[in-house]
């Protein structure tokens, strides 16, 4: 359970750092007035959707860390683990996902400048490359299957399919959000709204890229 404990430790540090600014040492029974002492650190100016996404990322992070924990524990708990032949295609897929993330980064910059055309092009490029990534993952599945590693052949292959599927499903969910943002951009979204929507997509994409890098490393380690 090391992976999940490490992850939770990071979450705890962030939560602790935030709590330390919340006036937990104040004596609320002594303070009367429209704003208590810790008012400045009260409701933060971050838009709710943005904070909501970060909380969601913490949940997804915990989920992936638990899969990683299970992976590492299962690997060492029995002697039946056989290393998978990792298809070289996965390296290419990784590159495509990085490209997708980069496109969304550009979309975010374009949205900040209010350059709609740039937002559209980059959202499209990001979405397309994410689709290519998913297709590539499916292709990688077929390659692994062709090597004789089916879902139930070996724990290594079971985890390979499971972990790539979980990551892929999260990306697919992100594509739905991306598609909605793209449609709304087309229909003419206010600049403020546009900036936020694109920002959220980009954050989610970067998170999934980092998550993939970690998971990929884990799979290579097996």
């Amino acid at each position, binding site marked *: *359970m090391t992976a*999940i*404990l490490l992850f*939770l430790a990071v*979450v*705890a540090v962030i*939560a602790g750092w935030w*709590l330390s*600014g*919340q*006036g*937990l*040492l*104040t*004596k*609320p*029974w002594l*303070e*009367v*007035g*429209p*704003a*208590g*002492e*810790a*008012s*400045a*650190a*009260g*409701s*933060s*100016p*971050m*838009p*709710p*959707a943005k*904070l*909501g996404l970060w*909380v*969601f990322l*913490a*949940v997804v992070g*915990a*989920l992936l860390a*638990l*899969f990683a*924990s*299970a992976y590492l*524990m*299962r690997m060492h*708990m*029995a*002697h*039946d*683990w056989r290393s998978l032949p990792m298809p070289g295609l996965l390296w290419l897929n990784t590159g495509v996902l990085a490209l997708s993330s980069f496109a969304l980064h550009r979309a975010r910059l374009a949205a900040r400048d209010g350059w709609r055309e740039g937002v559209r092009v980059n959202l499209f490029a990001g979405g397309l490359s994410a689709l290519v990534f998913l297709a590539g993952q499916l292709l990688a599945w077929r390659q692994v299957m062709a090597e004789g590693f089916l*879902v*139930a052949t070996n*724990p290594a292959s*079971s985890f390979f399919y*499971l972990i790539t599927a979980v990551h892929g499903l999260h990306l697919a969910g992100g594509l739905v959000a991306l598609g909605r943002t793209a449609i709304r951009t087309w229909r003419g979204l206010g600049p403020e709204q546009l900036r936020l929507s694109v920002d959220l997509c980009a954050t989610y994409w970067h998170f999934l890229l980092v998550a993939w890098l970690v998971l990929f490393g884990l799979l290579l380690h097996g």
Partner: protein
Amino acid sequence: MSVTSGPAEAIPAAEVEDVELYHPRSWLTKYVFCQDAKVIGVQYALTAIAIGLVALVLSWLMRLQLGFPGTFSFISPEAYLQFITMHGMIMVIYLLTALFLGGFGNYLIPLMLGARDMVFPYVNMLSYWVYLLAVLVLVASFFVPGGPTGAGWTLYPPQAILSGTPGGQDWGIILMLASLILFIIGFTMGGLNYVVTVLQARTRGMTLMRMPLTVWGIFTATVMALLAFPALFVSAVMLLLDRLLGTSFFMPALAEMGQQLQYDGGSPILFQHLFWFFGHPEVYIVALPAFGIVSDLISTHARRNIFGYRMMVWAIVAIGALSFVVWAHHMYVSGMHPWFGFFFATTTLIIAIPTAIKVYNWLLTLWRGDIHLTVPMLFALAFIVTFVNGGLTGLFLGNVVVDVPLSDTMFVVAHFHMVMGVAPIFVIFGGIYHWYPKITGRMLNEAMGRIHFWVSFLGAYMIFFPMHYLGLLGVPRRYFEIGEMAFVPPSAATLNAFISIVALIVGAAQILFLFNLAWSLRHGRPAGGNPWRATTLEWQTPQTPPGHGNWGRELPVVYRWAYDYNVPGADQDFIPQNQPSPGRASPEAAA
């Protein structure tokens, strides 16, 4: 952090206004597909109570079998296992978790914080409907071939998915796992709402340290649940794959009925780690909201400010954090390394410190208070007593050497029923008696409430105290019947019959409670806006029951903490949070 200038700018009121207030146009969007957190809260609560009723009937059935073995031919050993499994699962997940977080959380968080609604109302609505779907999938498992799973609520592999366990090779276990996965998805949607609402939608002046402890409890429990439920999700998905696709995540090589199965090398212990990594925080996911609600009930009904508010907040946070490093104390008999056992016993006992702080603070709040023995207060007091009782036996079970002989006996059953069954349920009852007037505008019937309380309270002790004794004798849990065991005297059977009769009576008292809920809706005494003369914001709404958007045109402004009872020099024995000065009755001088 001290800020003296520009408090008005410091709290962005715009954030609150940004919440899109949709207006229900039809009966369907007002009561069914509703985005109002108050309605969603009630929907959650009613669904949870409905499925809880199923769990109650199941507990009757298993008590009939234990009390009068051999009498009821329709209870087969398989059926008995299914009863205990579904009873446990329903109570822990679908009732307690859903009712505290989905029910009380939805209803109380926006009202207590002075918000108009949750920050993502649509997602919130979705959360309820996914929860309902999870419940329906669970109920469906009663009607499929082979019936529901009988694997025990912990669903330990390998037995959970083998043919010897009811539902193991049928639909039972599949629907159970699918239902859990749905529940977790639904909860995550709701949980995001509760957390972000607490962080972003508090009204002006509502600092974190002015929040009622109810909100602190629900908030911390939600954060824990968001991080702990993924562990159940992971174990459910992997167990489902083992069952459906023949993977060997948890399944070791084994033979069944003389036949070698295809599984190889999987680790049941891995499942236990994942399950309890969720399972132990779950105890506090249920307990922390209960702690919070009880603090508010005691303070209000004893007319005293809560003793040691800061300490209470710190204790809630500390318990939340610690509960993630004690999970393996459920696994002392799994053959773990003794040093692990030592580590987890230590962390387990450390949790007793913040918990004891809370108990002392409740007692000191009561000390020399003006105690009104209303029905909510009776339940709150019963919670403290019961929680202490259950907690003390927890000290027994938290120690490895004491736990080993007691493991898998009725002692464990009695322990967790006291500490996380009966105690939180008392808080739920107390909470419902307390907030029913706000939800419906009418008081619950007092006489029926008192009967309900005394039967439930005394009954719970008559059920579970003797059960500890049975456990000490060595009576194992989960057994269809004791049969003839040299170490169990015949008198144990008499005791079992006694427990069963009391259980039937206590169950009947819950029917009275449900009748009261329905009856008082029509015939209850009109409550007025603030029948308990409480300080927190939910009692200061312009309408009762609160209208759409909660607050009319202007949001309340908070001037003080939530516990100004019996302040010297004040006009009344309580000062609402939104009242600027002790003497003034109405808060019109705000802004």
